[in-house]
C-alpha cells in the first residue's frame, strides 16, 4: 500500500482524522509558545545545525574519541554495521548473562532494528516501559509517532486495551486510573527485569557519556536495578563536548512538547558499581546517508517530532500511514533515502507547505530534501501526463493547440467521461470549467482594437 491509501483508510473512520489533527496541533501550539519565550531561539537553531554538521564532518574522529572515553569510564563499546549485527550483539550480551526479562525504555533505534520481535523469538521477554510504547506493544503494533507513540489512539481504546491486558474495570477510560494501572504493572516488571535497554539521545565524545531524555523516568528505573544496561546508539547521536549538550537540551523538549526540558535528563558516565554498561554503536545505513550530500543533513535530526506535529498530512493521515519506523517529514526523507524500493511514495506524502522546515530545531531544510528525493523516486503515476504537458508548453503554438484540444474535449465529451478521467480531482471537487474566453484571446482582441 502507498501512503495515500493508508492515510485514506485512517481518514475514512469518521472523526478520527479531525481528532488526531487537533491533538497534534495543540502540541504544535505548545511548541510555538515555548519557542517564542526564548529570544535566542534562532541563534540556538543555527548553532545546533553547525554543531551537527561539524560532528558529521569529523564523525570517525569523534566516534573513536567517544569509544576511548567511554571505555576509560568502564563502559564496553560495541560496533554494529547493521540491524542484524546490533541484534546479535544485544542477544549475545543477554544470553551470556542468562537474562530472560528485559525492561526497555523508548528507543526508535531498537524499533528500526526490530529488536523486540528478534529477542522475543529467542525466548526473551522485552517490556517497553514508556507508557505510550507499552500501549502500542500491548496492541502489537508499531509506534505511530516518535515522541507520542500512541497518539493515534483514543483513551477509550486504551481503556479497552487495559481492561483486556491489565484487568482494569470495563469501561474505565479516565487517564489517571489508566496511568495508575500501567504504573502498577510496570513497577512489577521493573523489579523483575534482569537487564535494562535504553536508547541514547546524545553521546558526548569529550566525556564518553551518554544522555537519555524521558518524561517518565523509565530509563532511570529500568537501568538502576538490573546489573546490565545496554544502550543502543545511532552513530549520528554524537556531539563533541558536554557544553554542546546545553544547546540541544534547550531545543529538544521545547520542540517536542513545549516543555522547557524533559522531566528526566539522565546522564550515564560509565556503569554503576558492580554493574555493566554496554554501548552499541549502530550504523545501519547512516554512513551511506552521510556520503550523500543531498540528504546528509537529515542525519542532524534529534528526533523531537516537531515536523510531525506541524505537518498537516501527518496530522490528518496519521503516523501509521507512512508504513515506516520514522514517519512524518523527516521519515519521508530518511526512509526512502535508506530503502528507496519500499518507501518511494513517502516524499510525495507532502503538500509542499514547508512548515516542517520552519519548526526543525536543528534547521534541516526538509522541504528541499523532500523535493530532491521526489526527483530520485522515479516516475510516479501521472508522470506521463506531466511530461506531455511540459512538451505542450514549450511554445506559443503548441500551447494554443493543447489548450484548444482541452477546451474542445470539455465541450464535446460527456460530463461523466470527463469526471471519470479526472477522478482524483472530481471525487471531492468540482472540475473547473474553461472560461468562455481565455485571457490570451481577450488580450489579442484588445491589442487589435488598439
Amino acid at each position, binding site marked *: 500500500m502507498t501512503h*495515500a491509501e493508508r*492515510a*485514506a483508510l485512517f*481518514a*475514512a473512520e469518521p472523526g478520527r*482524522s479531525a481528532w488526531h489533527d487537533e491533538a497534534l496541533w495543540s502540541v504544535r501550539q505548545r511548541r*510555538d509558545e515555548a*519557542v*517564542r519565550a526564548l529570544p535566542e531561539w*534562532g541563534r540556538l537553531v543555527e548553532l545546533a545545525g553547525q554543531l551537527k554538521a561539524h560532528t558529521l564532518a569529523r564523525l570517525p574522529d569523534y566516534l573513536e574519541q567517544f569509544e576511548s572515553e567511554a571505555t576509560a569510564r568502564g563502559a564496553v563499546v560495541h560496533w554494529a554495521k547493521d540491524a542484524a549485527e546490533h541484534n546479535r550483539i544485544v542477544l549475545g550480551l543477554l544470553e551470556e548473562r542468562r537474562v530472560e526479562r528485559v525492561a526497555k525504555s523508548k528507543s526508535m533505534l531498537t524499533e528500526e532494528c526490530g529488536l523486540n520481535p528478534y529477542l522475543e523469538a529467542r525466548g526473551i521477554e522485552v517490556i517497553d516501559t514508556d507508557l505510550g510504547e507499552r500501549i502500542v506493544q500491548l496492541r502489537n503494533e508499531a509506534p505511530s509517532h516518535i515522541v507520542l507513540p500512541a497518539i493515534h489512539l483514543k483513551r477509550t481504546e486504551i481503556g479497552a486495551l487495559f481492561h483486556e491486558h491489565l484487568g482494569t474495570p470495563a469501561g474505565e477510560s479516565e487517564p489517571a486510573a489508566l496511568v495508575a494501572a500501567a504504573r502498577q504493572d510496570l513497577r512489577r516488571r521493573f523489579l523483575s527485569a534482569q537487564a535494562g535497554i535504553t536508547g541514547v539521545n546524545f553521546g558526548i565524545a569529550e566525556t564518553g557519556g551518554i544522555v537519555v531524555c524521558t518524561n517518565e523516568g523509565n530509563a532511570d528505573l529500568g537501568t538502576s536495578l538490573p546489573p546490565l544496561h545496554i544502550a543502543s546508539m545511532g552513530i549520528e547521536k554524537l556531539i563533541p563536548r558536554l557544553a554542546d549538550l546545553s544547546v540541544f537540551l534547550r531545543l529538544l523538549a521545547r520542540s517536542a512538547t513545549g516543555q522547557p526540558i524533559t522531566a528526566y535528563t539522565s546522564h550515564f558516565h560509565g556503569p554503576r558499581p558492580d554493574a555493566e554498561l554496554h554501548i552499541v554503536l549502530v550504523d545501519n545505513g547512516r554512513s551511506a546517508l552521510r556520503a550523500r550530500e543531498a540528504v546528509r543533513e537529515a542525519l542532524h535530526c534529534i528526533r523531537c517530532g516537531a515536523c510531525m506535529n*506541524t505537518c*498537516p*498530512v501527518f496530522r*490528518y*493521515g496519521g503516523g501509521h500511514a507512512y508504513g515506516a519506523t520514522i514517519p512524518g517529514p523527516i521519515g519521508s526523507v530518511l526512509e526512502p533515502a535508506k530503502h528507496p524500493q519500499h518507501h518511494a511514495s513517502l*516524499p*510525495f*506524502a*507532502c*503538500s*509542499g*507547505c*514547508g*512548515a516542517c*522546515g*520552519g519548526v526543525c530545531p536543528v534547521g534541516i531544510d526538509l*522541504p528541499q530534501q523532500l523535493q530532491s*528525493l*521526489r*526527483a530520485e523516486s522515479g*516516475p*510516479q*503515476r*501521472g508522470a506521463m501526463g*506531466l*511530461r506531455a*504537458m*511540459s512538451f505542450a*508548453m*514549450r511554445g*506559443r503554438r*503548441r*500551447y494554443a493547440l493543447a*489548450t484548444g484540444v*482541452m477546451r474542445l474535449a470539455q465541450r464535446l465529451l460527456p460530463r461523466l467521461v470527463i469526471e471519470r478521467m*479526472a477522478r*482524483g*480531482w472530481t*471525487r*471531492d*471537487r*468540482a472540475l*473547473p470549467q*474553461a*472560461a468562455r474566453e*481565455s*485571457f*490570451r484571446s*481577450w488580450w*489579442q482582441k484588445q491589442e487589435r482594437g488598439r
Partner: protein
Amino acid sequence: MRVALFVPCFVDQFAPGMARATLEVLAAQGVEASYPRNQTCCGQPAWNAGLPDAARPLARHFARTFADFDYVVAPSASCVAMVRRHYAGLLGRDSGSEGFDTARVFELCEFLWEVLGVREIEGRFPHRVGLHVGCHGLRELGLGNASERIRGRRPDPIRRLLESLAGIEIVDLARPDECCGFGGTFAVGEPEMSAQMGRARLADHAAAGAEVLVSADPSCLLHLGGLIERQARAWPVLHVAEVLAGHAWPRSQEVEGA
C-alpha cells in the same frame, strides 16, 4: 519601466478574470503592463512531481520570454516562488537563460508594496473576508510571518493592501496559515488527504464568519472553490486582484440570502 504580466496557464484558461483584474490594479497605479504572447507555464507541476528534466525546458522558455523586461508580475505567489526560489537550481548555468534575473519576478501585491511603494488602495469592500494565505508566498517568498517562525521578516503586503480598502474586515482564523491541501500534484496523488485538509480550512473560515474567501494563490482557490461547489454552498472565492480592482464577485447573485 517595462513590466510584463505573467498569467499562469490555468488562470489563462480557467480564471482569466483574475488576470484582467491584475492588469487593472497595475493600471490604477500607472503601470501599463504588457503580455508577451510567447509565455506558457512556469513548469511547477512537473518540478513538483519530481520531474526536473520536464520542468527545465519550461523554465528556459520562461527566462527567454521575459528576458527583456524590467519586472515580471504574476497573480500567483506560488508560480512566482517557483521562479524565484527554484529556477536557479533548475537552470544552473544554462546557456539559453543566462542573464535572466529571477529577482525581478514579483507577486502582484509584493510588486505594489516593494517596487511601487504602494501602501493604500482606493476602494471599498464592505465584507467579512477570510484571507487564505498560500504556503509558497508565505514561506518561500517571505510575504508575512509564518506562525511557526519567531522573528518577523516582512509585512504581508497582501493583507496590508486588502486592509487598506474601506469597509473590509479580515476575520481571525484559528489557524491563520494552515495549508489548504492543494499541493500541486498532491491534490490528485493524495486526493483524500487533500480534500480533508481543504474542508478543514473551509470550516475554519466558516467558523470565523467569512463571507468571502480571498487569496493571492489561484491554485488554492481552484481547489477550495471546487470543494465549496461540491458541498453545494454558495460561498464566493476571489483572487486578491479582483478585490483590489473593485470587481464584484462573480457569483454575487447566487449568494443573495446566503
